């Protein structure tokens, strides 16, 4: 089985360790994974701004890039949702390459939990962790139960993190509130976005967590920007980094 790693553009450029951790984690679990070098971006920034025609060629490129793989794994709920829930406008419904990529693109946690059926991990993380659910992971991919909907669901992220030894939970009071990133919204409505982020960080910290963990680095990039500006001592980590056993203290060096 050939598996391709689909790395979000900003992760490639600014958070290479998130991609390295994802790769190492998958390799450790025996997955033969490659990174197709020609990939760039899923087209979400353009599509979310409404610039559909600018997103189209990028989406087409992305599908062509991944069409030959049995599975595509992405350490981002947002980019995965883009392919799965928002690509239909760019392709004919009979496009077999697109349908293949659409049905075989997985967010990392769902790939681990649903496809590989990982139920135990040999890893330790002796820290108090606050979980940040990304909106797209939660409400577009349904990686876990959301507070608005009464349908019971498995919480895939929490289930995976529960396999980590010595990890302690300290969850925010608003379990799945948006952090305020929202792509170009972060710049468009900069004050609002920052205000949402500050509230989110305060909620995460109010329960005494040492690190905010999420499956979407974009939420974390935004919160990290605020944390650094306000010289807050807390850390952010991508779930792949926790699951592969990165120590918390070396985070700054590997970024």
């Amino acid at each position, binding site marked *: 089985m050939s598996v391709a790693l689909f790395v979000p553009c900003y*992760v490639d450029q600014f958070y290479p360790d998130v991609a390295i951790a994802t790769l190492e984690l998958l390799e450790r679990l025996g997955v033969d994974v490659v990174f197709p070098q020609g990939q*760039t971006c899923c087209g979400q920034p353009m599509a979310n701004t409404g610039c559909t025609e600018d997103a189209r060629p*990028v989406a087409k490129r992305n599908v062509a890039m991944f069409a030959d793989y049995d599975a595509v794994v992405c350490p981002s709920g947002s980019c995965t949702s883009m392919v799965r829930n928002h690509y239909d406008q760019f392709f004919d419904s009979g496009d077999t390459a697109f349908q293949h990529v659409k049905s075989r693109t997985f967010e990392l946690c769902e790939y681990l939990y649903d496809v590989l059926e990982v139920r135990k991990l040999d890893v330790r993380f002796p820290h108090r962790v606050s979980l940040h659910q990304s909106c797209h992971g939660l409400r577009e991919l349904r990686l876990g139960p959301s507070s*608005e909907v009464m349908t019971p669901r498995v919480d895939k992220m929490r289930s995976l993190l529960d396999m980590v030894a010595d990890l302690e939970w300290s969850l925010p009071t608003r379990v799945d509130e*948006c952090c305020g990133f929202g792509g170009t*919204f972060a710049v*468009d409505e900069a004050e609002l976005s920052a205000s949402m982020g500050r509230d989110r960080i305060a909620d995460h910290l109010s329960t005494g967590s040492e690190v905010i963990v999420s499956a979407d680095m974009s939420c974390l990039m935004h919160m990290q*920007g605020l944390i650094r*500006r306000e010289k807050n001592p807390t850390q952010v980590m991508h779930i792949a980094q926790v699951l592969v056993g990165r120590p918390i203290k070396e985070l700054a060096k590997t970024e």
Partner: protein
Amino acid sequence: MGALPIIDHPDASREFVTNKARSHWHDEALWFVRSKRDKQAHSVPEWEYLREQASEVKTHTIANLDRYLVEFEKNATAMGATVHWASDAADHNRIVHQILKDHGTLRIVKSKSMLTEECGLNHYLEDNGIEVVDTDLGERIVQLRHETPSHIVLPAIHIKKEEVGETFHTHLGTDKGASDPQYLTEAARGHLRGKFLSGEIGITGVNFGIADTGGIVVCTNEGNADLGVSLPRVHIACMGIEKLLPRHQDLAIFTRLLARSATGQPITSYTSHFHGPRDANSELHIVLVDNGRSKLRESETFRHALHCIRCGACMNTCPVYRRSGGHSYRTTVPGPIGSVLSPARDSKAHKSLPYACSLCGSCTDVCPVKIPLHHQLLAWRKELVGQDRMPKSKTVPMKAASYLFQHPKLFALAGKAGRTALRWLPHFATHNRLNKWTIARELPLPPKESFRDWYRKNRG
């Protein structure tokens, strides 16, 4: 109402958002309502089934609206009501005014109706020499302050009790500095009682119109609608054509969803049913208003917005609404549903609203009638760019990004150049007012190599 001036949401919201204490207070107040809603929704095991049913009933009704409207008119008329048809806001106001003139009325009492707000009825009547008294407490507070409601269910949610105290001191003569809600409510009650007694005609909105009975249903928590239409002889009910339900038995689905979604109550305190005028000496006028609804119905993408039962749950849950306040939307209906409805009315004036959203999707999940709100906001963005409504400052960078993402070597090179610049440039060169990201945030620390560089070296 005339076209509103174009006001960008970021500008309109700035004062509210940057007043951290007020913004937080507003956020907490609405989150409290949202939490009450969650508890109530959890207490109904068939909640998701109800939402599905409600959505299906609405889809069916909107698809067959012409037929049901005719049925409604026939049945309402048979019970003695007079049904009027208004194609737009001006039409609606003229019809209401004509009824008042026919009765020589100079004073009306009006219970909450976002439709009359949408049509600008208060101003129209006041300009014609008629005294209009809003009898919903929140509505009365904003009316005394010469403001508009900032929320469709909680019209005065943006006003603190101390401010209500000041308003009442000025207008109702309550003690200066009083802020006790019980005291203020009692004062308003006494004041409104007099208005009820002198009101010559009562105007209400309509929550649901029932096609197979011709009856209308009005839901309130204060009983003000009932009092307002029981004392006068004439009741005018103003109803948007989308408020229709086919059968009386469909109503139960909606009354179970409405109050729970709106305020986290199991049911509204008063759910009043009106079937024709109450006696031979009374009159019931029902004004059916289109005002853009038929146009919206023609749109494949946005037709679902007509499902809205005006519960306000999308506002309570919206993190943008909670922090920016309802007035920042500069529309009668604010929040997620307002940001879908308003551009349909005037896409130029309201072009910034679909962007006042982080696309978190909470509104879609909380909506009792399953309007795919965040998908519709996204669809509006596409529509606005297609209509060439968006400024170049927004669309040109996207064209550049698109080009970059189609050329991986250039993308890698640009990334490297950007990271290098970030490493070497002094902080003030990258973190200034020109870079809006950095108004409140630091940029990420740039790593020496990208993942693709690392991969080539280590796995290539």
